[in-house]
Each structure stands twice: as C-alpha cells, then as structure tokens.
C-alpha cells in the first residue's frame, strides 16, 4: 500500500517538474512557434495533473479547450503574422512610430 503512495508521489512530483520546466521554457523562448508547441504540450501535461488531483472534468476541459482549440487558434494567428511578415506589408504594430 505504501508502495502505491510512494510511486504516486514520484509520479506527481515528475508531472509537477515537467509542468514547471515547460512553463519556464514557454516564457523564456524567443521563438513564437516553439512557444505555441510548448503551450500545447503544457495543456496536455496539465490535463494529466488534473487527473492526478482527481478532477477529470477539468482535465477533459483542459485537454479539449486548452490544448486543442486554443492551440489551433494560436497556430492560426501565428500563420497570419508569418504570412504578413513574409509579404512586404508592414505589421500593424509597426504602422505608427
């Protein structure tokens, strides 16, 4: 029985470490695309964490909304930015000095 508790604690600790590492890198990186991919990975890991604290509904919502739909939305916005950057247009934020 204590075996289960110990292993569970190890698992929780590893998930927490992974989350912290993902979050740190997510905030530090200067590559927007990498940040988006890290955000998706973070959402999936966070869903695992919600499972571990016994909140499967939030895990479901996090996986579907946080990782799936938001990730797709970010990729979409990234694509728009990149297309504009690739063309000769100036970015909206550079329009006014």
């Amino acid at each position: 029985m204590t075996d289960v508790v110990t292993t569970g604690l190890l698992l929780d600790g590893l998930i927490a470490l992974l989350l912290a590492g993902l979050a740190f890198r997510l905030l530090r990186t200067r590559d927007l695309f990498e940040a988006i991919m890290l955000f998706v990975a973070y959402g999936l890991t966070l869903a695992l964490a919600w499972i571990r604290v016994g909140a499967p509904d939030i895990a479901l919502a996090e996986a579907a909304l946080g990782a799936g739909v938001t990730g797709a939305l970010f990729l979409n916005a990234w694509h728009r930015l990149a297309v504009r950057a690739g063309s000769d247009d100036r970015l909206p934020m550079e329009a006014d000095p």
Partner: protein
Amino acid sequence: MMGPSSSHGPGVSSPSPSGDAPTGPDASSPSPLLRDHGERDGPPLLRWLLGLFLVPVGILLALGLKGAAGSRDPRIPDLIAKHLPETGVSNPVTGVLLNFRGYDTLLEIAVLVAAMVAVWSLDRGQRHFGLPASASASGGAGGGRPFLSAILRLAVPTAFLTAVYLTWMGSSEPAGAFQAGALLAGAGVLLSVAGVLRPLTAAALPVRIVAAGGVAGFVVTGIAVLPFTGAFLAYPEGWAYPLILGLEAALAVAVAVILVELFVDVPSIPAHDAALDAVDPYGDPLGRALAPDPSPADPEAP
C-alpha cells in the same frame, strides 16, 4: 507523393549550410513577434530589479494560497451530498453548475457570446465561400487531399459521437456541455482548416440563433419556472433532469458554434487582401458583413 515537391521546384529548397543555420534565418526574419532577439527588452538593471521584486510577491502568493487552502467551509461537501438527489443528476459537479449555481453557468456562456461578438467585430467581412484558391499554396493540400479527407471522415464522426456521449453522461459522470462543445468545436476547426466547411460570418442568421440559444435557453427556462417555484432557475420537482439535459444540449451546441466562430477568418488568411486593409478598420465591420457580398462567387483574392 512527388507532386508538392515538383510543383514548387528546387528553388524553394533553399540550401543553408549547417554552420549559419542557428543565426542565419533569424537575421532575415522581419517580424519581431515571430522571433525576436531581445531588442525590445528593458535595460538589464530594470530586469534584475523586477526579478528581485517578484520574489517577495511569489512568497506572498504562496502564503496566501496556503491560507486559502485551509479556509474552505468543511460543510459544503456534505451539503452537496445531502441535496444531490434533488438536483435530478447524480454527478455533483453538474448538480452544482446547472442546479444550485445555474446562474454561474448562465454568465459563463454569456461571456463566451460576448467574446464571439468581439471576434466578429474584427472580421473584415471578406467572404469567399468555398475553398480559397491559395489554400493549397500554403497548405500543400494537393498531395495530401485523399489522406486528409480520410482522416476527416474518421475523426469528425467520432468526435461528434463522443460529444453527444459526453453531454449525455454529464448527469452521472465527470463530463458535460462545455467539454462536449469544445470537442465538437475541434471537429469544426478540423473541417474549416481543411477547407471543407467555411465558418459562417456574423451575417448568418442560423449562427446567431444557435450561439444565442445557450443564453436564451437559460433565461427562458429560468423565467418559465418562476410561476411554479418562485425563484429564478429553480426547477420544479421532477422536472430537473429533463430541463438540465435540454440546457446541456443547447449549451454544447452553442459552445461549439461560438468556438468555431473564433476561426471566422480562417479561410481568408492566405489570401491577404490589400483592398480590405485600405478600408477603415473602425467603421462598422458588422454592418459591412451584413451587406451583400460584392463578389460571392469569386474564389480569387487579389
């Protein structure tokens, strides 16, 4: 298989020796958002001071969190367990969200509707229905189309079924309308990104009706039960389960439609339209979207 590569020719495959690879591409990137080098960072001293300032803030937050964790009213779980049979559902979370605290969920869906309206106000009314001509230029769909449609045929019905299942099970198991709606929205995003389905713009009346249906269902139900129970959103005895199930279904569909509407601009992305940029972005975009499309059948964007 060789289609995409031959159509773009060898010129696209810009060879870059591995030596300059880490720095070379960055230098030519014109967008500061996509990849920046820290030019916009503040002075180093300021950043250090900020970091130092954040340490006590973090400690304070941790202490506050520790205090808050212990101050939960210990009677709440028992109260919920005691009154759960009255809610008509056996999942305590659904019971709280749709019965005890129904107005909470009502405000949640209202916030989502407000977000959707905000996105609509950014939509510049460019409506080229059907697959944009330039979609394949950015997505390279030509080679992948049979594969893409195969996975769509598999994933979209499965997602739909799972969403129905999640809504249905929400009364007894940890699941519910928001999760089902998000999953349904995932299927919708898949369809719209693949170019099969174009998210309808603000002009489409059915979209408005369905998106407002979540809020409207709540408000109408809440008022309709007033003569029987005397309180807003207090369901009459025996009616709780069917009412909750109906509200959940309306919510799931509304959430899905609203989330897909956030992608309303998707198909027009590759066809960046200079003419639309010239239009005053602050001048009543919804009104323009409602006006008849000047060239609805024109698949080519300038």
